[in-house]
């Protein structure tokens, strides 16, 4: 065996072993900080949200967006979502990805809202009360002549009417235990403007109920006992929720209004199914292809089969180590690239067959086959790379992770396939060329009979 081939063989075995280890042996994964495959939202479950900010009123749009991202990051942290993605897109858009989150509706309400807590009053002609049904939902009540409608509590500052919301809280809310009721309360302080508004409102609503809402959800509706200006408490929450609300409020307020313009929610159970079946599909596909190669191309086919197995291990290891976020489309891209990996081998084997027909020895046919097939392999894979590049660009500018995932896995798959065809298949073929099997030409010629072309070879 030539020295070059020995070195190549060694290199291939090392790469293959490393790939297998990276895939199966935990300590290696741990030391590289890559223990698991990274899964996209459609496999893991979670929410993909795109918001558009209304920057028309903002003095400094850049700062405003930074503020928005900052607050949203902290609000999401209060949820304990692992590996959230918060990304600015363009001038006024925000991408938020929350993997594995279960309470999507609640999260949405809190992430997108400028103010978390709204204060509302009853607009009515007579006396009445906020009525909540057994689920804690507010119901409209018709009582006597008037219908009670809930409106935001407003007051005037400098002649301008403003709604009372938590945006006027100082960022120092605390959870305290009320000595008398033994219930937790969220204690807050008003800033200057808030104090002005609250004074007016408590004055107007003296002895009437004031509704406190988290987004659209009512938390409580205490009756105003006195005119208050500087501080207040929110009751009606258990200890955990109180702490959680406090940390949300202290995270700050979003400076500009946000509108939800795109959303995709996937439940985790669906994702787990996809993974299972994706695996089955991959194994079945790979097995069928290897079987076909072996039957049709005989000995070279067996070599291609081994090369394909090494190829699969290397590609999966690459996905794990880079890491590539796997989506369903990404898995499809990988499985598609298996088919294309075969292509390089087929090109080489077809050339070899022709060379053998013109009377060359097996060893010479192997070399000639490679040299003649390489330009075709290179040229035809470049077009796939171009398509992948464009797809990746389209996917990232339109914030569509599946498209990006597909482009990336296809690209990596095809690139590594070029490598395995060039190095692995060639080395194995060369080695087989110097064994006794090389004497038996029939092992190297495909099974089916071919019509020979006239007028040229």
């Amino acid at each position, binding site marked *: 065996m030539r020295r070059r081939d020995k070195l190549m063989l060694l290199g291939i075995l090392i790469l293959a072993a490393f790939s297998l280890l990276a895939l199966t042996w935990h300590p290696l994964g741990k030391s590289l900080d890559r223990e698991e495959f990274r899964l996209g939202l459609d496999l893991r479950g979670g929410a993909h949200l795109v918001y558009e900010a209304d920057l028309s009123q903002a003095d400094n749009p850049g700062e405003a967006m930074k503020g928005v991202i900052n607050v949203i990051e902290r609000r999401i942290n209060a949820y304990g979502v692992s590996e959230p993605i918060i990304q600015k897109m363009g001038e006024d858009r925000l991408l938020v990805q929350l993997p594995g989150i279960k309470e999507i509706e609640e999260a949405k309400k809190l992430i997108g809202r400028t103010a978390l807590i709204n204060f509302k009053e009853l607009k009515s002609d007579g006396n009445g009360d906020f009525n909540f049904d057994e689920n804690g939902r507010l119901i409209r009540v018709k009582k006597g002549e008037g219908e009670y409608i809930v409106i935001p509590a407003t007051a005037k500052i400098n002649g301008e009417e403003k709604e009372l919301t938590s945006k006027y809280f100082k960022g120092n809310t605390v959870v305290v235990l009320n000595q008398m009721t033994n219930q937790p309360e969220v204690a807050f302080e008003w800033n200057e403007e808030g104090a002005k508004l609250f004074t007016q409102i408590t004055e107007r609503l003296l002895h009437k109920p004031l509704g406190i809402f988290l987004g659209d959800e009512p938390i409580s509706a205490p009756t105003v006992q006195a005119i208050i200006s500087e501080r207040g408490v929110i009751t009606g929450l258990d200890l955990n929720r109180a702490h959680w609300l406090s940390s949300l409020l202290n995270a700050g307020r979003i400076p500009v209004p946000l509108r939800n313009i795109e959303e995709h929610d996937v439940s985790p159970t669906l994702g787990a*199914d996809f993974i299972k079946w994706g695996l089955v599909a991959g194994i079945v596909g790979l097995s069928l292809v290897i079987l076909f190669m072996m039957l049709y191309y005989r000995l070279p086919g067996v070599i291609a089969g081994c090369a394909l197995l090494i190829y699969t291990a290397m590609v999966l290891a690459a996905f794990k180590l880079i890491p590539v976020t796997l989506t369903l489309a990404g898995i499809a891209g990988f499985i598609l690239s298996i088919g294309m990996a075969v292509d390089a081998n087929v090109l080489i084997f077809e050339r070899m067959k022709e060379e053998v027909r013109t009377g060359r020895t097996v060893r010479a046919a192997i070399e000639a086959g490679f040299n003649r097939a390489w330009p075709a392999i290179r040229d035809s894979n470049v077009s796939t790379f171009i398509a992948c590049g464009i797809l990746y660009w389209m996917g990232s500018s339109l914030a569509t992770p599946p498209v990006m995932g597909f482009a990336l896995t296809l690209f990596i798959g095809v690139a590594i396939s070029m490598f395995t065809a060039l190095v692995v298949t060639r080395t194995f073929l060369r080695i087989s060329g110097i064994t006794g099997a090389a004497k038996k030409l029939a092992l190297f010629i495909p099974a089916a009979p071919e019509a020979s072309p006239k007028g040229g070879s």
Partner: protein
Amino acid sequence: MIDFVTRRRRYFLGSALFIICGLIFLAVLGPPLGIDFTGGVVMGLEFNQPITQDMLEVKLSELGHSGAIIQSTGKNSFLVRTGELEEGEKAQITKSFKDLGLASEPSFDYVSDPIAKEKARGAAIAVAIASIGILLYISWAFRKLPNPFRYGTCAVIALVHDVLIVTAFFAIFGRYLNLEINLMFITGILAVIGYSINNTIVVFDRVRENLSKGMRLSFEAVVNNSLVETLGRSLNTSLTTLVVLLAIFFFVGVAIRSFILVLLIGIIAGTYSSLFIASQILVAWEKGELVRLFRRSS
């Protein structure tokens, strides 16, 4: 030996018929567009007890969405498609479905109108750039031959042919098979474009090689020989890729079936166009038949 070239008019006719059929369906029924391009909401529902489509229609009408489109995707699972929902409507609708017995939280996809327009534009741009990029690349790769632009153009014609065949299929069978044209469809189209060019290049590469051998043969004969010589490779590669795709198609669920179908049909169309369309147009061009076609009709 097989003759690929002489009966080329038949192949052109066959493709043209299917494509025209598809275009008629497109014009009459409109393309089956997904919310990626139209905007709106799609909710995926799994029920843990027997539910019929009518029951869902009733519930939706009650909530003011009688125009909602409902699709059955399996036993007691459905896709419901509506326009944009107001704040709070989603919770309302989810609750009324929960009353019917939902097995888990519904999946929810929402694309607002402006985003849908952007996606449509982005997709169109991507396909245009891909085609132009490939035209330029092939013309460059075949620069040493006479008329290199012809090779590039024929490759692009084959590519457009493949895209039209897939689109025609979706236009004709889309509503019956619950297929839709969305961003994943476009992704599939771009993948098919990349793949189709592979095939075409291999054939043209052989044509280039045979031409440079300088044998005294007509262009038609050279092209035919090239096709026959590369037949083994073309068929094998397509076959293996199709096998792999069929495996995915049968084992993975509804979610990407549309996408895999694009790839399946696209690769079949791509193989067909590499063998029966691209090179044949090259020959027809060389023989001046295309010019005659235009002259006759003018």
